[in-house]
């Protein structure tokens, strides 16, 4: 019962996330609005801009859409990992921690929940983006994209859990936001190609796992990418494994005082 593979605990932790997600409808709409407006306004405003190293048919909106999708996934999943801090604040974390369930199972349960909600957000975004003018490239891409979506979500839920495990409360949240989330987003090539950056910034960008996520999804959605998709996939698998282990370790050290 206390093994990490505790199906019932994983299921109920996931189920709780689902119920909370479905019951917070205004949040679902709210968190989709900004990336959608970005897509719509920037995509229209920079209509004539042709990103370098992209095929002729790719306009800026289509270039931007995978990037904004990555942002939806990054923010959504990271918040859902960090929601541990809310659970701590509202006391529910104690209820979870006092149960005979291994800490790893708790992390995995939350990861599954966060992956699902982020994926649903991403899917909704894709639907509205298609309405705004995103043209899906191929059927194969439609299969490949969800894979990248789930990988990004899994990794960033665990970034959130890891951070929540070392933070006491939401005090440090704006630090995380401004010095982690936004830089990762800006360096990921979600909005513009990184070739324009000075060399050292480009090097930083190569260290941004989201770069590979965006690139992989670009391959899936519009059929053009900077790296071979297998490279993107491998980098994400490695990043994901590192983050899951890190967050599992850090979370198992959490004490409730």
């Amino acid at each position, binding site marked *: 019962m206390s093994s990490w593979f505790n199906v*019932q605990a994983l299921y109920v932790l996931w*189920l709780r996330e689902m*119920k909370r997600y479905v019951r917070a409808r205004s949040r679902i709409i709210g968190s989709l609005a900004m990336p959608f407006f970005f897509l719509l306004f920037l995509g229209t405003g920079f209509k004539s801009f042709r990103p370098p190293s992209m095929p002729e048919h790719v306009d800026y909106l289509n270039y931007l859409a995978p990037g904004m999708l990555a942002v939806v996934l990054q923010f959504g999943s990271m918040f859902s990992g960090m929601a541990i801090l809310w659970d701590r604040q509202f006391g529910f974390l104690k209820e979870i921690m*006092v*149960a*005979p369930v291994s800490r790893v199972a708790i992390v995995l349960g939350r990861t599954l929940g966060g992956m699902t909600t982020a994926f649903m957000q991403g899917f909704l975004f894709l639907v509205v983006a298609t309405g705004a003018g995103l043209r899906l490239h191929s059927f194969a891409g439609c299969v490949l994209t969800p894979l990248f979506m789930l990988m990004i979500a899994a990794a960033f839920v665990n970034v959130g859990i890891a951070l929540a495990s070392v933070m006491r409360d939401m005090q440090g949240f704006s630090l995380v936001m401004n010095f982690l989330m936004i830089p990762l987003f800006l360096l990921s090539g979600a909005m513009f190609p990184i070739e324009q950056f000075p060399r050292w910034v480009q090097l930083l960008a190569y260290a941004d796992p989201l770069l590979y996520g965006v690139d992989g999804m670009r391959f899936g959605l519009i059929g053009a990418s900077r790296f071979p998709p297998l490279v993107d996939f491998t980098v994400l698998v490695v990043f994901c494994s590192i983050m899951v282990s890190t967050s599992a370790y850090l979370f198992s050290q959490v004490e409730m*005082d």
Partner: protein
Amino acid sequence: MVATGSVFSAACQQPDELFALETRNLTKQYNGLTAVDRVTLQVRQHEIFGLLGPNGAGKTTIMKILATLTLPTAGEAWVWGHRVTHDKDAVRRCIGMVFQEPALDDRLTGRENLDFHGRMYGMQRAQRERRIRDMLHLVGLEDKADVLLKQYSGGMKRRLEIARGLMHFPRVLFLDEPTLGLDPQTRYHIWDYIRQLNAAEGVTVILTTHYMEEADALCSRVGIIDYGKVRVVDTPACLKNSLGNDILTIEAMPLEPLYTALAEQPWVQSITCHDQTIMVSVRQAEQTITSAVLLAQRVGSTISSLAVRKPSLEDVFLHYTGKRLRDEGTTTQGQHLRRGHP
């Protein structure tokens, strides 16, 4: 860690008795502050054991250590024979916990909160559903089962938490300040639930409280704790008898001459005065009451009220810690004892 060897051999000599809970020199320090100071306790099975002490005395920290939520700095503790530091999951399986602050998800309904709990403890569907029904019945929340917790009152949440603490048939139920901040009526109801479940389910109950009446009304034994140290452990009756005194409560005008005169009497064991009331501990009130009245006459004080009472837990607390409970809660009895300082 100190002297566990001898304790163990002592325990081994009487293998029949498994304590529901045992601690040995349990200590917890936070940044050099000692919150729990070498606490040694033994709680028998099926007891209702109370930890009585003011806020900040270390009660909650003890609970958290016993519930595996935080590690002790030193010392050891066993719950139902399992070490809290080594056998966490075994401990977690046999305890139920009701925290001081609500630990519920208020975006779920009452039933969903219980269901979450049942699944986390690996209960199968049929058993889970039956148990949810029984527990909701026990705390009288059947008709609110499918309402979101946001709409629950404080007392309802508390009752739901007690129900949840019992969901998985725990051996030991920890209740951290179970009636804190509740109105007197709800408090009496919760006392009833606690008694009922102790009787019906045979569950051992460990509760913390800073309400004297609560400890007195509920607990088979009480440990008085202050500054992280356990001062004394006994039944409420024995604790009160151990003072061995009657207490005379005298209101008089003017107060000072009587106070001075009484303080000089050989039969007065101790005397305190506050709120225009003198409290005198005497060995036997029957023999001294007349002396007190005569004395008042002689010094020219008019007695407006004179009462004899047995020592309360409040007096016991005062005796062992040298002070009154710091926190003035919404107590319903003996308010005059809690105001001001001697």
